[in-house]
C-alpha cells in the first residue's frame, strides 16, 4: 500500500526548496522574465505545489500569507502542523502521507476542499473550524467507527465525501448509513447519490435520525434562548440598569446578611419583610424602566448626531470631488497643450499657469476641509454638552430613587429594631413563646447584642445599595467620557487623513508637472 519511501532520505522544507518551487510554478515567458528580474515575494504566491518531495515535516510556510491552494501530497508527513498562518487557504491536499490524526487545522476557516486520502487516520474530529467545507476526501484510511459520520453532520455545505477503503466502508449498511445521516450530500465515493437511494436510506434509518434531529433541535433552541437572554442582558447593561428588573438587588442584600436572615424568623417580621420587599422591588423596577427610557433617549441623540455629521462630511466630500473632477478635466487639456507646445516662452507660461492651478486647487480643498473642521467642532461641542447633561440628569434621578430605597431600608430597620426590642423584653420577662428558633436565642441575650445584630444587618443592606448606586454612576460617567473622547479622536483622525490625502494628491500633481519641466529641460 505505501511506497518504499524508506529507501529515500527525508527532506527538510527549507527556503531553497520553496524558492525553487515558487520559481518553477511562477509565471512563464515574458512575465516570467519580469518575475525573475524582480523576484517573487512569498506572500504574493497564491498557489503552491510540493508533491513527491519526501517531506517529513511541514515547515517554513509562514511567509505564504495569501496562499489559497497548497498541495503536499505524496510525501511522508506524519503530523499536520505549521499551517496556522495560512488562513486564506481554500484548497489543501495532504493525500498519500503518513498522517495519523487530524489536527492543526483550527485556523483554516476558509478551507473548502480538504483531501486526506491514503493516510492512517482512524477518527474524524478536530474539523470544527472548517465551516465552509465542501469536499472532504478520507478514503484509504483506518476509520472503523460508523459514529464518525454523525460528526460530519455539522458541515452544512458538505457535498462530496469519500470514505472508500476504510473499514467502515466494508460494512453492508455503509452507503445507506451515510446517505441517511448526511442528506445534503451529493457525491459519495465519487458517485452521484441517486434519489432512489436517498429515499431508501431515509426510510431505513428514519427512526434514529428523527431522534437525532430532535436532540439537535433541542440543543439549538437552548443555544438560541441563551443567546437571546445574553443579548437582553447586554442591552440592560448598556442602560446601566441590569438586574434591577426584579428582586435581584433585594435578594443580594440578604445573601451575605446572616443576622438579617436569622431575624426574619421573629414573629411578625416575615409580613414586614414581604411588604418591604414589595416596595423595594417597585422602586427597583422604576429605576429599571427609567434607565431603559434614558438609554433610548441617549441612543436617539447619538444617532441623530452621527447622521448629521455623516451628512456634513458627505456633502463636503461631494464638493471636494467636484472640485477635483473639474480640475482634472482642465488638467488633461493643459497637459496635452503643454506637451504639444514647442515654443519655450509659451511653454514656460503654461507651466506657470498650471502650477498656479495646482496651488489654487490645494487652497480650495484645504479651505473646504478647514471649514468642515470648524463646523464639526461646533456640532461636536454641542453634542458633548447635551450628552453630558443627559447623563447627569439620569444619574440625579437614579440617585433620588436610590435614596427612596435607603429610606425604605431605614424605615424597615426601625421597625425591625422595635420588634427585636419588644421580643427581647418579652424574653427577659420570660413570657415568650417557645417556638423561637434556636439560632435566634443567642441574639436575644441583652440589648447590645440585639442592637449590634440589627445594626450589622442594616449596614450590609445600606452598603449593597450604595455599591449598586456607585457602580451605576461610575459606569454611566465613564461611558459618557469615553464616548466624547472617541468622537473627538475620530474627528482628529479624519481630519488628518483628509489633509494627508490632499497633500498626497497635490504632490503627485506637482511631481507630474516637475517631470514635464525636467523632460523639457533635457530635450
Amino acid at each position, binding site marked *: 500500500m505505501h511506497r518504499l519511501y524508506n529507501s529515500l532520505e527525508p527532506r527538510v522544507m527549507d527556503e531553497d526548496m520553496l524558492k525553487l518551487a515558487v520559481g518553477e510554478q511562477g509565471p512563464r515567458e515574458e512575465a516570467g522574465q519580469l518575475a525573475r528580474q524582480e523576484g517573487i515575494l512569498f506572500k504574493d504566491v497564491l498557489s503552491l505545489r510540493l508533491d513527491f518531495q519526501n517531506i517529513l515535516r511541514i515547515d517554513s510556510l509562514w511567509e505564504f500569507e495569501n496562499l489559497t491552494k497548497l498541495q503536499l501530497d505524496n510525501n511522508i508527513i506524519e503530523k499536520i502542523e505549521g499551517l496556522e498562518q495560512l488562513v486564506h487557504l481554500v484548497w489543501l491536499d495532504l493525500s498519500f502521507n503518513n498522517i495519523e490524526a487530524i489536527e492543526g487545522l483550527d485556523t483554516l476557516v476558509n478551507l473548502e476542499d480538504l483531501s486526506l486520502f491514503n493516510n492512517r487516520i482512524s477518527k474524524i474530529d478536530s474539523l470544527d473550524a472548517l465551516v465552509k467545507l465542501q469536499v472532504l476526501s478520507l478514503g484509504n484510511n483506518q476509520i472503523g467507527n460508523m459514529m464518525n459520520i454523525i460528526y460530519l453532520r455539522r458541515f452544512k455545505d458538505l457535498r462530496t465525501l469519500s470514505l472508500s477503503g476504510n473499514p467502515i466502508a466494508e460494512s453492508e449498511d455503509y452507503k445507506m448509513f451515510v446517505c441517511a445521516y448526511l442528506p445534503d450530500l451529493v457525491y459519495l465515493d465519487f458517485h452521484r447519490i441517486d434519489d432512489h437511494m436517498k429515499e431508501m436510506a431515509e426510510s431505513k434509518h428514519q427512526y434514529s435520525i428523527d431522534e437525532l434531529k430532535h436532540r439537535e433541535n433541542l440543543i439549538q433552541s437552548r443555544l438560541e434562548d441563551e443567546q437571546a437572554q445574553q443579548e437582553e442582558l447586554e442591552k440592560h447593561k448598556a442602560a446601566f440598569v441590569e438586574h434591577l428588573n426584579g428582586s435581584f438587588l433585594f435578594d443580594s442584600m440578604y445573601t451575605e446578611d446572616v443576622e438579617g436572615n436569622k431575624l426574619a424568623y421573629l414573629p411578625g417580621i416575615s409580613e414586614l419583610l414581604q411588604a418591604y420587599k414589595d416596595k423595594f422591588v417597585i422602586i427597583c423596577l422604576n429605576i429599571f424602566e427609567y434607565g431603559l427610557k434614558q438609554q433610548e433617549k441617549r441612543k436617539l441623540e447619538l444617532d441623530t448626531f452621527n447622521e448629521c455629521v455623516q451628512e456634513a462630511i458627505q456633502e463636503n466630500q461631494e464638493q471636494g470631488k467636484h472640485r477635483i473632477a473639474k480640475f482634472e478635466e482642465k488638467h488633461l487639456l493643459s497637459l496635452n497643450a503643454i506637451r504639444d507646445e514647442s515654443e519655450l516662452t509659451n511653454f514656460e507660461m503654461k507651466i506657470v499657469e498650471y502650477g498656479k492651478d495646482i496651488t489654487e486647487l490645494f487652497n480650495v480643498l484645504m479651505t473646504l476641509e478647514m471649514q468642515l473642521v470648524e463646523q464639526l467642532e*461646533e456640532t461636536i461641542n454641542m453634542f458633548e454638552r447635551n450628552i453630558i447633561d443627559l447623563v447627569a440628569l439620569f444619574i440625579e434621578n437614579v440617585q433620588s430613587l436610590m435614596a427612596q430605597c435607603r429610606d425604605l431600608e431605614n424605615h424597615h430597620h426601625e421597625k425591625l429594631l422595635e420588634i427585636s426590642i419588644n421580643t427581647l423584653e418579652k424574653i427577659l420577662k420570660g413570657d415568650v413563646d417557645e417556638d423561637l428558633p434556636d439560632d435566634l436565642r443567642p441574639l436575644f441575650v441583652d440589648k447590645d447584642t440585639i442592637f449590634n445584630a440589627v445594626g450589622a444587618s442594616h449596614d450590609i443592606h445600606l452598603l449593597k445599595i450604595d455599591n449598586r448606586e456607585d457602580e451605576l454612576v461610575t459606569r454611566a460617567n465613564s461611558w459618557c467620557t469615553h464616548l466624547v473622547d472617541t468622537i473627538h479622536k475620530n474627528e482628529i483622525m479624519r481630519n488628518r487623513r483628509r489633509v494627508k490625502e490632499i497633500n498626497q494628491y497635490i504632490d503627485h500633481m506637482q511631481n507630474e508637472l516637475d517631470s514635464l519641466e525636467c523632460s523639457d529641460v533635457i530635450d
Partner: protein
Amino acid sequence: MEVLKEKVEEEAATERAEAAERGEKLLRPLDARREEAPMTQEMLRDLEKKLSEIEIVVPEQPLTFTKDSIDISKLPLSYQSNTLKEEHLLQVADNFSRQYSHLCPDRVPLFLHPLNECEVPKFVSTTIRPTLMPYPELYNWDSCAQFVSDFLSMVPLPDPLKPPSHLYSSTTVLKHQKGNCFDFSTLLCSMLIGAGYDAYCINGYGSQDICHMDLTRDVCPLTMKHKEMVQEEEKVPSKKYAIKPPRDLSSRFEQEQEMKKQEEMKGQEEKQRREEEARLLEVEKANIDPLHGLRVHSWVVVLSGKREVPESFFIDPFTARSYSTQDDHFLGIESLWNHKNYWINMQDCWNGCKDLIFDLGDPVRWEYLLLGTDKSHLSLTEEEDDGMNDNDDVENLGKEDEDKSFDMPPSWVEQIEISPEAFETRCPSGKKVIQYKRAKLEKWAPYLNNNGLVCRLTTYEDLECTKTLEIKEWYQNREDMLELKHINKSTGLNIDYFKPGHPQALRAHSYVSMQPEMDRVMEFYETARVDGLVKREETPSSMTEHYRGRSDFLSYRHVDFGPRVKKLALNSAESNPRPVVKITERFSRNPEKPADEDVAERTFLIQEERIQLRYHCRDDHITASKREFLRRTEVDSKGNKIIMTPDMCISFEVEPMEHTKKLLYQYEAMMKLRNEEKLSRHQAWESELEVLEILKLQEEEDDAHTLAISIYDTKRNEKSKEYREAMERVMHEEHLRQVEAQLDYLAPFLAQLPPGNKLTRWQAMCVKEECLSDFKQRLIDKANLIQARFEKETQELQKKQQWYQENQVTLTAEDEDWYLSYCSQAMFRIRILEQRLNRHKEQAPLKYLALEEKLHKDPRLVEFLKVFV
C-alpha cells in the same frame, strides 16, 4: 336616381330659404327688444347686410336623409302603429301640451311626439330604448359617447331654430350611420341608461359651435400637455445637529438689485404675453353668431347618484365631450326626458344653464308630465318622504286617478344592435376627420390602412392651417410594434415610439435621416435585452451607449470614430468600418471589490496606444487612484525587446500598496487591458452593425406593411378561417352523406300499404318490384330529359346559324362577335349535355343493380326475399 336627387336638393333649398326667413323674422323683434337704445337706419341696414352675408354659409350639405331612403317595410309592427296605451299616452301628452300653451303662451311648443320614420307620432320617451351593449368597452359614459360620436355622422337640423319634425328610431339611425343632434342624444341616452347611468335627453339651445359640431375654435384635447405636477419639495426640518452653513459673504444689496431687475423683466414679458392673448381672443371672437341663443340643440345630461357619478354633467353627443353644467356653450333648456318621464324646465335661462338646478323632484322648477313613475322625491329628508309617498299611494289606489297613475308604455324601438364589424369600423366607412383649432385629427378603423395607421394628428402654426408644425401618427397591429410616429416639421426630427416586442427591443428612435452614421438616439427596453442597453446616441463621429443592470457593471461606453480610410474596392459600412480613435467606458461600483481595484472609468486612446484608468473613490476619500499605461514596444541597447519599464505605467494611488509597484503586476494588468481593448472595439463594431440592422428592418417594415393579426381575430386570421371553413365543409359533407344513408327507398311504397300490419311475402315482393320499376322509370325519364334539352339546344343553334347565314352581309361587327360567342357557348352546352347523357347511359344499369342489392339487404324485406332466393 338623378331626378330624385334633384328633388331632394330642391326641397332642401326651399327649406333653407324658409329657415332663413324665419330666422330673420325672429331676429328682428329680438334685436329690437335687446337694443333699446335708438338705432340708426344705417346701422340696421348694415346689420341686415351682414346677416344676409352670413346666412348663406349656414347649411351646405344635403339635409337629413329623406324618407325615400328608408325601407319601412322591413320594420316591425310596433314602428308602424301605436298600441292602445301609446295612443292614450299621446292623448295625455296633447292635453298636457294644451294646458302648457295656455299657461305659458310665450314659450315655444313642446317637443313631445314627433313622427317616426313610418310617419307615426311617437312619444319621445318611448323612443329611448335602454340597452346594455355586449361590448365591455361601452360600459363607461366616456367610451359610449365617443362611440356614438364616431359611429354617426352629423346632419344639421333642417331648421336650426326648431326641433325636428321627425325623430327616427335608433335602429334606423344606426343603419344609416347619420343623424341630427336629437338622434345622437337619443341613441347615447339609450346606451347610458342601459349601462346604469341616470341620463336624460335634453331639448334646449346651444351655441353655434356646438350645434354645428364646429371644433375649430377648440384646442384639440390630444395636443394639450399634461400639466406637470409641481412637486413641492418637502423641506426637511433641520436636524438638531445639522451643521451651520459657512457664512455668506456676498452682498445682500446686490442680490436685491438683481432680483428687482429680473422681476421687472418678468413683468414686462408677462404683460406682453397677456396683450398677445387678448389680441388673439379678440380675433377669435370677431364673428358673433346672430342666432345666438336660438339655435336648438339636443344633448345629454348625466345626473349624479348612479354609477358613482359625483356631480351632474352634460355630454355633447356630437363631440363626446363632457361639460360642466355651468358651461357657456349651453344656453338654455326647454325640456328633458328619459325612458320613463318628461320634464319641462320652469326655471329662467337668462344666464344660460348656469343657474339651473337639476332636482327633478322639485315641481316648481321642473314640471313633470307623468306622475308617480319616479323622481318624485324632492330633496327632503328621506323618511318623511317615504311616509308621505306611502300615504299617497294608498289614497291614489282608492281614487283610481287615471292621469296620475299612468305608466310610460314600453319602448316601441327594437333593441339596439351593433354588429362587431360595425363596432370595430366605428366611423362611417372607417374614416373620420375632425378639425380643431390649429389642429386636424384623422381617425381610421384598424386594418383599414395597410400600414396600420389608425390616427393622425396634424398641428399647425397658424389658424388657417397652412403651415404644418408637427404630425403625430398612431399605429396599431404593426409587426415591428411601432406605436407612434412623431414628426416635427420645423426641426425635421422624427421620433418613433415602439411597444415592447421589437426584435431589438427598441423603445424609441429619434432621427433626422434614416442614413446610417447620422445623428440619432435609440432607446431600448433594457430588461428585454441581454446586454442591458438603455440608450444609444449617435453623432456622425461618435457613438454613446448607456447600460443598466449588467453583471460587469458597465454603465456607459463612448466611442469616437476617425474619418474613414478610403478603400477603392469595398465601400459599404459593413466591410469598411470607421477606425476607432477613442473608447471611454465607465463602470458603476462593484461592491465586492475594494475601491482601489474597482475601475470607474477606462479610456483606450487607440492611436496613441495609451490606456487610462480611473478607479472608484473610497467612501471617505475625495481623490481616486489613477493609472496610465503607455504601450511602446522598444528595443534596448542590446537589441532585446523591452517588456516593461517603470515609465510605461504612471500611477497615482490614494494609499500606495506594495504589490502594485511591481512590474509583473503592471505587466499583467496591461496584458489584460489589451485584451479588453480588443473586446471593446469588437463591441463597438457590433453596435454599429446593430444600428444598420435596425435601420434596415425599419425600411423593410415601411415598405412591406404586414400587420399582425391576433389569433383570436377569427375574421382576419386567414389560416384559421381556411381551417374553419374546411371543417365546416367536411361537416356539411358528412351531414349530406348521413342524410343519403338514411334515405328510405321503400318509404313511399310502404306508405301505400295499410299501416300497422306486418308485411306478407306477396306484399314484400310487390313493394320491391314497384320500387325497382319506379327507379327504372326515373332513370329513363332523366335520360329523356337530357335528350330533350340536347335537342332543344341543337335546334336553337341551327336556327341561329340559319339567321346568321341569311343576314351575314348586313351584320355589324358587334353582332358578329355576339353571334360567335353565342355559338361557342351553345356548342359547349351541347357537348356537356352529350357527355352527361353518355355517362347516364353508362351508370344507369349500375345504379339499378345497386338499388336492387340494397333492397335485397333491406331488413324489412330480407326475410321474405331470402326464402324466395
